């Protein structure tokens, strides 16, 4: 670029110089020509004047030499001037140079001659002037001389006078015979010398003067002649001619140069036109480029935050994006230093480095945190580009930035997030496919140390396999590992796409211990440390499975201690407990490792003999019986001997269920008891009928059957309001029919149902049938006068989602209004499942159902529980009601319960109202409802509401 520029300048100068040269050559300096011509003439004139003045001097028109001298000076000067003027011509023309130098020679020659002329003329003049005096002096000296005769004097005088005359004629130009004059002079001198002797000064002087006059006269004329002969004029003419010739040549050249100038100008003009055209196209290209650049700049401005600063950081340009992000206007930023957006995020070293980089002409890139006008910080990825001048120094900086605040924030967030695994107090590791540890946090140190590995080394082989397994199955797996005193749960999470496994450890030491102890507690009897009924049933289930599937044979022993009640009754529980413990330990010693001894309750024990036939079982049972018989409890210096009734049953592929097996063993045990105690009985199906009646187990097995056969009946008993403003309620009661249709009271089957977890099934049956009844009743009675029914629910039912869902679904049908249904729950049931009970109550109360707390006063009877149970009715336990007439404490209980209930805005119901006296007392106390045989005996629901409820009440009343 620079070379091109230099070239253009050079060409421009060349063109200019050429044009100027041509122009100057084409010019004819008329002034110069005029001067030269004038000088030639002046010189000619001065020379003429010189000649003239010489002639004038010669003819003594001028007495001094001033004019000659002046003329000489003038010719000198005019010749010098002429030479000066002609110098440009002389420089290149040798002819003129020679002519001029010849002219100078002639001039010099002439000057010399003039000089000599002046000398001669001066002498001539002076001698001439004095000549008459000299004659006079001579004549005077002749006349005054006494020594000589008069004749001689006269002769000399005459001669002298004659010479005087001749001299005058000579001086006047009439006499030219110089020889004659000299001769006359020498004659006079000779004669005078003869007359006066040698020392006559006057004659000497005269003759000398005469000689001088003649000599100088001669010289004078000679010089004048020579001066005339110096042909300056002719030489000047030659100079003039040569000059004219040169001038004409120059004139012609000038015309040529003029033509050349014209041509050159035309060429230049054409070139300029060409350049102009090219410039036009360049400018259109430039325009295009400019548009392009503008577009690019617009694109840059749209994308990036752009600013330009000078070397000191003063802003000279900012784009809109810069304004947007910094919140300043353009006017606020221009002329300001870039520091205006500086934040305190970076230290001075950071900026120092940045400036160092750009000041040395390098591009700087980095991320800067800046501060906007409102003080908020923003991050920009910045590129600073210095613009360099010709000297290689930066003179401005262009900053291009993109807003990375969000990225930066998320980066920081990610960084913080990335610390999660590191900061995790539990071990976190990442292991690749090959079993190499890629990452492990501080907490993982315990594992790393345990495995004796480091980062980037391999975990032990057994765990490598685990890693492989996890990756192949692509499923999270868990393993427990015991590291010293600690237990860890290791969760292996495969990240199959990255081919590594994340390992999360969890310290489960505490949990493990708690779990161990819990499972121990759950599975063992607290007193004896033996397996409890729950665990035993599980074992039994396993045994049953193995028997049915693998055709194995096992034996179950059911042991009931005889005479245990005596120990308990006579020595108390502590003794009984002690007995149980000691006996348990003893019994354990005789069983095989795989056998299980369990305490099933009270003084009942169970033994499971795995892989054992009847014979073997008999043997062991006998051994056991013997052991118990041998045992003596020493208590308070008393000895107690006990016995045991053992029922034995075989578990084989034909065994039906655990319940069945247990029932059979129980029956066998009863049979042994019946047979006179301290015996072993093997179950025999023929024995079963006799024992059936006595066993809860019987009921338990009957209930599911009765449910499926609908051998239950819904009864109802009126709850009569003692206050006339209230409506009567009816409590639903249940009774079971046996296979023969005999009525079985709840007191018989309910405990069995509770023991065998059948209550929720019974409750479900009741609820379903109550709703069925109500739905039918509502249909038959045109949806009017639906009775208010109270349904008993067990604690088990309150945890049943299914039941709740069913009840809600029934209400949603819309036939039975929730207001008509009250649920009765016992205090014990509510509290043992407190949270679930609260949930259950709330969710139904929400709809509109009401709740009654049953048997209040007999159980835990805690008013504080009452406070947190949102019930609507309190049913005062019938025990207090029954005795309230005779027992003032019972009366007080009834009264206080009633009062508390009322204070809590709960309605009270008294049970077991068996006579009018009680009813009157209750009315007096202000109890809201009464229920009992005095008011109404339970009757079948269907029958009760065959007629209207109101009629019934009237009948009672």
């Amino acid at each position, binding site marked *: 670029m620079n070379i091109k520029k230099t070239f253009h300048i050079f060409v421009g100068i060349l063109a200019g110089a050429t044009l100027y040269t041509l122009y100057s050559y084409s010019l004819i300096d008329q002034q110069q020509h005029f001067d030269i011509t004038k000088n030639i003439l002046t010189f000619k004139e001065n020379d003429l004047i010189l000649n003239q003045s010489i002639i004038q001097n010669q003819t003594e028109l001028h007495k*001094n030499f001033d004019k000659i001298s002046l003329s*000489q000076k003038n010719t000198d000067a005019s010749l010098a001037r002429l030479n000066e003027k002609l110098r440009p011509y002389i420089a290149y023309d040798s002819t003129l140079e020679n002519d001029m130098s010849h002219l100078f020679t002639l001039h010099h020659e002439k000057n010399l001659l003039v000089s000599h002329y002046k000398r001669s003329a001066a*002498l001539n*003049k*002076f001698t001439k*002037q*004095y000549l008459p005096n000299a004659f006079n002096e001579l004549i005077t000296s002749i006349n005054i001389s006494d020594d000589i005769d008069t004749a001689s004097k006269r002769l000399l005088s005459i001669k002298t006078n004659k010479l005087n005359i001749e001299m005058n004629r000579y001086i006047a130009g009439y006499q030219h015979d110089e020889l004659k004059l000299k001769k006359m002079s020498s004659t006079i001198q000779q004669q005078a010398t003869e007359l006066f002797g040698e020392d006559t000064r006057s004659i000497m002087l005269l003759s000398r003067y005469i000689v*001088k006059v003649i000599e100088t006269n001669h010289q004078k004329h000679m010089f004048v002649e020579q001066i005339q002969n110096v042909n300056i004029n002719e030489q000047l003419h030659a100079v003039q001619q040569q000059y004219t010739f040169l001038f004409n040549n120059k004139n012609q050249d000038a015309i040529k140069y003029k033509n050349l100038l014209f041509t050159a100008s035309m060429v230049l003009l054409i070139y300029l036109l060409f350049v102009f055209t090219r410039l036009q196209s360049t400018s259109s290209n430039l325009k295009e480029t400019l548009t392009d650049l503008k577009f690019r700049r617009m694109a840059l401005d749209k994308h990036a935050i752009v600013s330009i600063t000078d070397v000191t950081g003063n802003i000279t340009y900012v784009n809109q994006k810069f304004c947007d992000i910094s919140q300043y206007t353009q006017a606020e930023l221009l002329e300001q230093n870039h520091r205006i957006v500086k934040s305190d995020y970076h230290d001075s070293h950071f900026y120092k480095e940045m400036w160092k980089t750009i000041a040395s002409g390098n591009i700087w890139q980095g991320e800067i945190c800046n501060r906007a006008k409102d003080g908020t910080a923003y991050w920009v990825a910045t590129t600073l580009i210095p613009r360099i001048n010709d000297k290689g120094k930066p003179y401005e900086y262009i900053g291009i930035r993109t807003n990375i605040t969000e990225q930066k924030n998320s980066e920081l967030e990610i960084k913080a997030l990335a610390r999660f695994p590191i900061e995790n107090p539990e071990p976190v590791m990442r292991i690749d496919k090959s079993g190499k540890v890629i990452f492990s946090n501080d907490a993982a140190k315990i594992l790393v140390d345990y495995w004796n590995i480091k980062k980037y080394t391999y975990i032990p082989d057994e765990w490598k396999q685990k890693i492989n397994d996890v990756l192949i199955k692509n499923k999270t797996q868990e393993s427990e590992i015991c590291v010293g005193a600690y237990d860890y749960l290791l969760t292996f999470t495969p990240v199959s796409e990255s081919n590594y496994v994340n390992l999360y450890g969890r310290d489960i030491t505490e949990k493990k211990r708690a779990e161990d102890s819990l499972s121990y507690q759950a599975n063992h009897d607290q007193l004896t440390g033996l397996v409890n009924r729950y665990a035993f049933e599980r074992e039994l289930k396993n045994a049953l499975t193995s028997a049915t599937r693998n055709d194995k044979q096992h034996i179950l022993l059911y042991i009931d201690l005889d005479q245990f009640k005596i120990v308990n009754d006579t020595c108390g529980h502590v003794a009984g407990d002690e007995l149980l413990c000691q006996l348990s330990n003893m019994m354990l010693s005789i069983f095989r490792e795989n056998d299980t001894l369990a305490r099933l309750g009270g003084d009942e024990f169970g033994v499971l003999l795995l892989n054992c036939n009847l014979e073997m079982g008999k043997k062991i049972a006998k051994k056991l019986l013997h052991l118990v018989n041998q045992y003596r409890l020493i208590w308070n210096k008393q000895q107690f001997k006990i016995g045991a009734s053992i029922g034995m049953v075989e578990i084989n592929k034909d065994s039906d269920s655990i319940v069945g097996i247990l029932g059979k063993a129980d029956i066998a045990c009863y049979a042994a008891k019946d047979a006179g105690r301290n015996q072993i009985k093997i179950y025999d199906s023929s024995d079963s009928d006799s024992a059936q009646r006595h066993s809860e187990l019987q009921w338990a097995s009957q209930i599911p059957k009765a449910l499926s056969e609908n051998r239950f009946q819904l009864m109802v008993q009126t709850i009569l309001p003692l206050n006339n403003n209230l409506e009567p309620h009816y409590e639903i009661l249940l009774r079971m029919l046996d296979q023969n249709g005999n009525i079985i009271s709840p007191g018989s089957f309910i405990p069995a149902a509770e023991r065998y977890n059948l209550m929720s099934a019974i409750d479900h049956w009741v609820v379903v049938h109550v709703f069925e009844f109500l739905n039918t009743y509502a249909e038959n009675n045109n949806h009017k006068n639906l009775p208010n029914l109270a349904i008993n629910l067990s604690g088990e039912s309150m945890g049943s989602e299914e039941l709740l869902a069913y009840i809600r679904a029934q209400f949603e049908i819309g036939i039975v209004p929730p207001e008509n249904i009250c649920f009765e729950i016992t205090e014990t049931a509510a509290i043992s499942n407190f949270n679930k009970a609260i949930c259950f109550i709330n969710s139904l109360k929400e709809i509109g159902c009401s709740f009654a707390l049953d048997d209040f006063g007999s159980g835990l009877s805690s008013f504080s529980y009452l406070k947190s149970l949102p019930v609507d009715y309190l049913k005062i336990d019938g025990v207090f009601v029954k005795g309230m007439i005779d027992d003032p404490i019972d009366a007080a209980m009834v009264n206080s319960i009633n009062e508390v209930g009322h204070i809590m805005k709960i309605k009270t119901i008294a049970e077991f109202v068996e006579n009018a006296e009680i009813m009157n007392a209750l009315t007096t106390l202000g109890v809201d409802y009464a229920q009992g045989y005095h008011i109404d005996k339970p009757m079948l629901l269907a029958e009760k509401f065959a007629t209207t409820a109101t009629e019934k009440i009237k009948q009672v009343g």
Partner: protein
Amino acid sequence: IPNSIVVNPNLVALGEKLFNEPRMSNNNISCASCHNYNLAGSDGLKTSKNIQGGNDLMNTPTIFNVGLNPLLTWFGRNLTLEEQIDKVLANKKHMDGNWVDILNRLKKDSSYTKLFNQEFSDGLTRNNVKHAIASFERTLITPDSPFDNYLRGDTKAISNNQIEGFKLFKLYGCISCHQGINVGGNLHAKLGTFTSPFKKDNNTEKSRFNRGLFNLTNDERDLHVFRVPSLRNVAVTAPYFHSGAIKDLSKAVKFMAKYQTGRQISDNDAQLIADFLASLTGQYQGKTIISQYDTKGSL
């Protein structure tokens, strides 16, 4: 002689400054060191001091009326004043300067560059320096001498003795050479028209000077030829002749008469002529020129 000449006063002032400028030589002497124009335009010495401080062998001619002299120096060079300045400056015995050094020295003085730039389009140059000095020298004229006034018609301007002297001046032919506006200075003459005052030429430096114009032309006719000096201010510019050999003006007159006219003149005539010559003493800037040379009763 003109009472005044038309000059450029600024240029003359610059010339005068240069005339008194010691930096024109390389040894701290100026033109005015020898040509003291506050007095008679000369140094009053028999022969000039040369630059080394020794004695030169020629008398310093007065600078007054030099502009009216067609011929310069004792040898009567046909030169312009400018040319003569060149010669004096270059002369090893006189100023011993060279132009490069002189111009460098002057250029260091901003007052010169300023003045030259005012007067000349091309500023401080060799020619302009010479031109300025010459211009000043041309103003060194001494008009209004008693004789000038006498010639203009003031018959009382000069004494009777002086009138008598003038007559003798003419009678003896002195006027043949000492003529014109400057009473001489415009021609050459051989010293010793009839008999030579010079002893045998022994080729000493002094003898060589006595050869006069011969030194320049090598022409036999120019042996002992000198310029006829101007007689203006002659009474105050003793001592006389090229060698400064004669201090007394009347003696100089007698010397002239003896060798130039070939005649003994009486002391009385010589004194009268000398009296007349005193009437040629003019005025510079309105003041009569006075001699710096202390000769008893010479005037």
